[in-house]
């Protein structure tokens, strides 16, 4: 069939089972949008307020569904507005496919109107990218992009399509292809008998094993296999920020988050273990702190689908390259059931250790009380965050029940991620009620997307912890800069209730936990966006805290 390039874009997306697109139109993608108009019954396009919102939405959508998130943007400023979101997806291994238009091939390289070299700009922050200048390569490029974004360790791919390719014509025959899914079963990679035997030996020799997992376990849908393995070898589990939601919060094997703001018991037990089995984690500096201390007296068995991660940040005893789900299942079947009586007692005692207690003063309107009140009403719906103290409190206090229900910017720590991501997550979860925890700093970055949430009538509850400060930076200034609060006190006079109303959403304000509970009850009966502003103390701190580069010995508990 003879098709235009714009038609091929839409056809190939449909072939891959795409039904949702986030984006923002413009001159260089107008032909693609014209095709979108013709196929509007098959493809739902969400127009955001800014391309950053669109790419974060595609990212949030991908994290919730496991399917690639698609984002469209025009050339020049449209494309550059995607950059932060693409970097964010890259650092959190999220399968985002960005399709941008560019000026006609004959105008490339002449600093034409709205021309930027977006493939050059995004080269270091994509898994791969393309500029398509020949229509005959278009369909294959898009198919390849899906396979690259979703296979192995997922990641963002950008396809820049010149305008003449969109308007040109060629023969193309769409076919029925299996829909690409980031979580489609992956084969074991590169693990021989010898490695498996060695791994089984390490596990059997360990007296104090500890399982430490990151986002790879969520991406590979390996929760069940992880819990079975932990049971089988009798080991506790600690998770990185990105790993959260992989196991239910209340599971007896789960000790909490590991890292700079991790839970005392989870970190302490890790430091007492003699074998760390690390799954789908890159040992980020925020999670590990002092690497020497981390490695002292223990062996490390690292499992990752990306061989380059094995041994990159931490020297490991043994690395297994493969998909977490498959490798964990294989390890379970290749080791006898194990019991570690003494170690289990140490672990159980630690849970009751006073320093493991995260309770905040119950008499006050604390972040913990706010998060707890949301958690009690939420079931297993999706929770997203922005970046800062509120993000860490959510990761510490929220009791996640189901994988892929915690959407947060881990690797890049992108303030402003929340609004877009929550919108994408809400849409990805079939428009189930979604909560975004944010704060005054982050919210101001991309609050324009409230308009997107309102236009699409999304049941999104934005819980804004207003501490009138860039709280996380302020906390560092308190602890490490003698209270010199350089430019972190936000003297904003924004009236959030009126702001929400101006967007067409509902806005509430809470100054006590009782008020907040009432606001939440109301919010949970509304099927459209609600913002609840909670005034909290600007000196509330995220504790415990291990200073950057420090170890459990440096932990600040009070």
């Amino acid at each position: 069939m003879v098709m235009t390039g714009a038609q091929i874009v839409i056809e190939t997306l449909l072939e891959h089972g795409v039904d949702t697109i986030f984006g923002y139109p413009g001159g260089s993608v107008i032909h693609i949008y014209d095709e979108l108009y013709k196929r509007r019954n098959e493809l739902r396009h969400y127009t955001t307020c800014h391309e950053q919102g669109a790419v974060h939405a595609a990212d949030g959508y991908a994290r919730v569904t496991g399917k690639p998130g698609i984002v469209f943007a025009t050339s020049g400023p449209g494309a550059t507005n995607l950059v932060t979101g693409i970097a964010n997806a890259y650092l959190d291994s999220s399968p985002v496919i960005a399709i941008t238009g560019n000026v006609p091939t004959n105008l490339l390289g002449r600093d034409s109107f709205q021309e930027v070299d977006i493939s050059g700009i995004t080269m270091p922050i994509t898994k791969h990218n393309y500029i398509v200048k020949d229509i005959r390569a278009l369909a294959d490029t898009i198919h390849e992009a899906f396979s690259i974004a979703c296979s192995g360790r997922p990641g963002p791919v950008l396809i820049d399509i010149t305008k003449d390719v969109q308007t040109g014509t060629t023969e193309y025959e769409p076919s029925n292809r299996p829909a690409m899914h980031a979580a489609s079963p992956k084969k074991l990679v590169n693990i021989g008998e010898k490695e498996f035997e060695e791994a089984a030996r390490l596990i059997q020799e360990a007296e104090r094993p500890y399982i430490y997992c990151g986002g790879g376990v969520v991406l590979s849908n390996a929760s069940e296999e992880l819990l079975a393995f932990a049971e089988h070898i009798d080991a506790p589990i600690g998770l990185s920020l990105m790993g959260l939601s992989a196991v239910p919060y209340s599971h007896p094997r789960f000790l909490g988050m590991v890292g700079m703001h991790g839970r005392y018991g989870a970190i302490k037990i890790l430091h007492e273990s003699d074998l760390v089995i690390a799954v789908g984690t890159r040992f980020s500096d925020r999670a590990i702190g002092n690497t020497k201390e981390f490695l002292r007296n223990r062996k490390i068995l690292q499992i990752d689908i990306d061989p380059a991660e094995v041994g990159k940040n931490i020297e490991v005893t043994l690395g297994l390259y493969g998909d977490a789900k498959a490798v964990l299942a294989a390890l379970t079947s290749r080791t006898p059931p194990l019991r570690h009586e003494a170690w289990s007692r140490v672990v159980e005692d630690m849970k009751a250790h006073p320093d493991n207690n995260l309770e905040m003063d119950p008499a006050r309107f604390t972040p913990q009380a706010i998060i707890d009140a949301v958690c009690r009403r939420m079931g297993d719906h999706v929770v997203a965050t922005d970046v800062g103290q509120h993000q860490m409190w959510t990761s510490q206090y929220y009791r996640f029940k189901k994988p892929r229900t915690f959407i947060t910017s881990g690797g890049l720590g992108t303030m402003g991620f929340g609004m877009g991501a929550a919108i994408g997550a809400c849409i990805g979860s079939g428009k189930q009620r979604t909560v975004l925890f944010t704060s005054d700093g982050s919210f101001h970055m991309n609050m324009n997307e409230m308009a997107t949430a309102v236009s699409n009538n999304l049941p999104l509850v934005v819980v804004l912890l207003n501490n009138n400060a860039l709280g996380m930076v302020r906390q560092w200034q308190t602890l490490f800069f003698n209270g010199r609060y350089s430019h972190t006190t936000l003297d904003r006079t924004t009236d959030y209730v009126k702001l929400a109303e101006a967007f067409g959403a509902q806005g509430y304000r809470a100054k006590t936990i009782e008020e907040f509970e009432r606001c939440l009850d109301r919010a949970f009966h509304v099927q459209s966006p609600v913002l609840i502003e909670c005034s909290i103390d600007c000196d509330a701190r995220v504790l415990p805290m291990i200073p950057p580069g420090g170890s459990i010995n440096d932990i600040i508990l009070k």
Partner: protein
Amino acid sequence: MQRNQCIVSLLVSNHAGVLTRISSLFARRSFNIESLTVGVTQDPSLSRMTIVSWGDEYLRAQIVKQLHKLVDVKKVQLMDQDKIVVRELMMVKIKLEDGGLPEVMQAINAYRANVVDLSPSSIAVEIAGEPTKLNAFLHFLSKYEIVEMCRTGPTALGRGSYCLENES
């Protein structure tokens, strides 16, 4: 040459932008590049690169693993330096003093270099061989005035059955 020096051979897609992807990877991961050569192979869709770098065992492993992740890199191998032939090409133009030609010609013959250009005031020479041989020749020429020179950087090929083959 550097201690810990290593030679990495690659087969890469032969299209625009591949060189940028590779050099930008080296730059952003703080890998060293001493030299890089590239040329098309018998299969016109593939180019072969030889990168000379240096670093400890950790860096060498990371170089190979990170390169491997690039979609355009079809094959990457840290070459065993005992099993390869390494060659480099250099061209040097030196200023000719009156009556100096015979002495220069002697050296050129001794090093099996070739004259590629001769003018009343200068002589240009090409020499191919192991980088160490080129260094020695250059050292000898240092007593003359070098007008300009260029080196390609080493390129390497495995001996006998030791090959870099396209996996895909």
